[in-house]
């Protein structure tokens, strides 16, 4: 399926403790379309249970030697992925065409994405297919109330899976899904019962592939999901008119106590749109400044941009401190040739991000 020079897609399966990751994974691995999948799991918490459940489905398992997938042990992930690739080349393991990394419930997905992006050898062999986050329909709301890690897992997702939906009352599920849409407007939400879901909805389903697939970029970006009324108090008095399409976390949850939703309050999701072509040097300096100095709170940045002097669109993708090299796309995915940058941030107000970008994008020379 993959050519010799193509990079293997990696999906990161995350979700809080007990949210159904392993049930989902064990079901997925029994699906005929998932036969050529290697799985990496953590040895943490209920590792024995995790291991036994998925070992039966797939032999291509690498158990990480230590703890949680976070900065302190990401070298284990590097080693695991390198070993896996070398064994594949040497035919020491059955052929696999994709990798799924199941994180612990407490894991921050950002370092995993950064590992894939920052390690030169891994970046040459693997590419991020997407982040899949499971949320328990019954207790997911309470988990989001209490656990900042769970909120971040939702905010960084490309796909949101609401599990155990059959166990929760419909109004609670509806409220949870509305909350998820506010936290991460661009990520489609799917309901899952007993781990059953078609793999096509989760893998190779329009997520970003730098090697091309222009049509997929539209679904990858999904900026339409961010479109609501422009935020008040911001006019458009300069050359690259932009709109700020979505913002949340400021009192939308009526009826909740003031502290209950505090983790949500820190998250903002918005899209900035620029009608005039941008200068790459200015955009790159502005994004680099944001990523370097406020990267911890720059959870995801995705964009398709029109650049002065370049007829083809360019895709940009950043996770906290790191950005992929910009990818030159073959063509615009649709008639809309404006630059669109989607941000999911923590403690970075939309107005401040837009203001800094505006100031640095202006050509005043």
């Amino acid at each position, binding site marked *: 399926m993959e050519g010799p020079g193509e990079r293997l897609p990696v999906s990161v399966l995350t979700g809080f403790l007990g949210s159904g990751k392993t049930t989902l994974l064990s079901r997925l691995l029994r699906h005929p379309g998932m036969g050529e999948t290697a799985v990496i799991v953590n040895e943490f918490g209920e590792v024995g249970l995790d291991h036994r459940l998925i070992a039966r489905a797939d032999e291509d398992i690498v158990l990480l030697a230590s703890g949680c997938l976070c900065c302190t042990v990401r070298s284990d992930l590097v080693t695991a992925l390198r070993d896996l690739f070398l064994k594949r080349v040497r035919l020491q393991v059955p052929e696999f065409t994709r990798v799924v990394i199941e994180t612990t419930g407490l894991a921050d997905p950002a370092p995993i994405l950064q590992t894939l992006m920052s390690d030169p050898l891994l970046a040459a062999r693997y590419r991020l297919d997407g982040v899949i986050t499971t949320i328990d329909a019954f207790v997911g709301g309470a988990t989001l109330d209490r656990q900042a890690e769970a909120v971040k897992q939702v905010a960084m997702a490309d796909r949101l899976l609401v599990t155990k939906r059959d166990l929760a009352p419909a109004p609670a599920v509806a409220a949870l899904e509305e909350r998820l849409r506010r936290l991460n407007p661009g990520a489609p939400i799917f309901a899952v019962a007993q781990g059953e879901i078609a793999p096509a909805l989760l893998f190779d389903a329009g997520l970003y592939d730098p090697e091309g697939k222009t049509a997929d970029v539209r679904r990858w970006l999904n900026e339409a999901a961010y479109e609501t009324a422009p935020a008040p108090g911001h006019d458009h008095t300069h050359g690259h008119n932009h709109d700020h399409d979505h913002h949340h976390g400021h009192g939308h949850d009526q009826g909740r106590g003031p502290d209950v939703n505090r983790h949500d309050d820190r998250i903002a999701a918005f899209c900035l749109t620029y009608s005039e072509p941008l200068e790459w040097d200015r955009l790159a*300096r502005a994004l*680099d400044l944001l990523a370097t100095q406020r990267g911890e709170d720059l959870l995801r940045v995705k964009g398709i941009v029109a650049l002065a002097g370049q007829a083809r669109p360019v895709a940009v993708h950043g996770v906290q401190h790191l950005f992929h090299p910009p990818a030159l796309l073959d063509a615009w995915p649709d008639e809309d040739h404006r630059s669109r940058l989607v941000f999911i941030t923590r403690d970075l107000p939309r107005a401040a991000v837009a203001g800094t970008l505006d100031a640095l994008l202006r050509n005043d020379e």
Partner: protein
Amino acid sequence: MCALCGFLGIEHWSDTDIVAPAAPVAAADPVARRRGRRQRIAIINQVLGHYALQLDDWQACSYLLSSRTGRTEIVEDPMALWAAAEAMIGRKLDPLAPDLLARLEADSDGA
């Protein structure tokens, strides 16, 4: 830039020439490269000026970061720049700080 990236010659993502990506480095127009480098420095100086710092080209391969008090430091690449600037001013450099934003807007409006 980490040692491995430097060893492998991996360029910083923001230095990618995405406007003319097909041009090999050896064949690139040196005048255009110098012009691009000057423009990058000018953009960065918009921010550094707020902190009384200035960046200059250093032999077309590195940068010279200097303060008004005469401190200078050679910076190898963009990844090291902001950390060096913070070390020089002795405090956090926040790109979203309201006073910085006000200055950037004032500079732009006055241009």
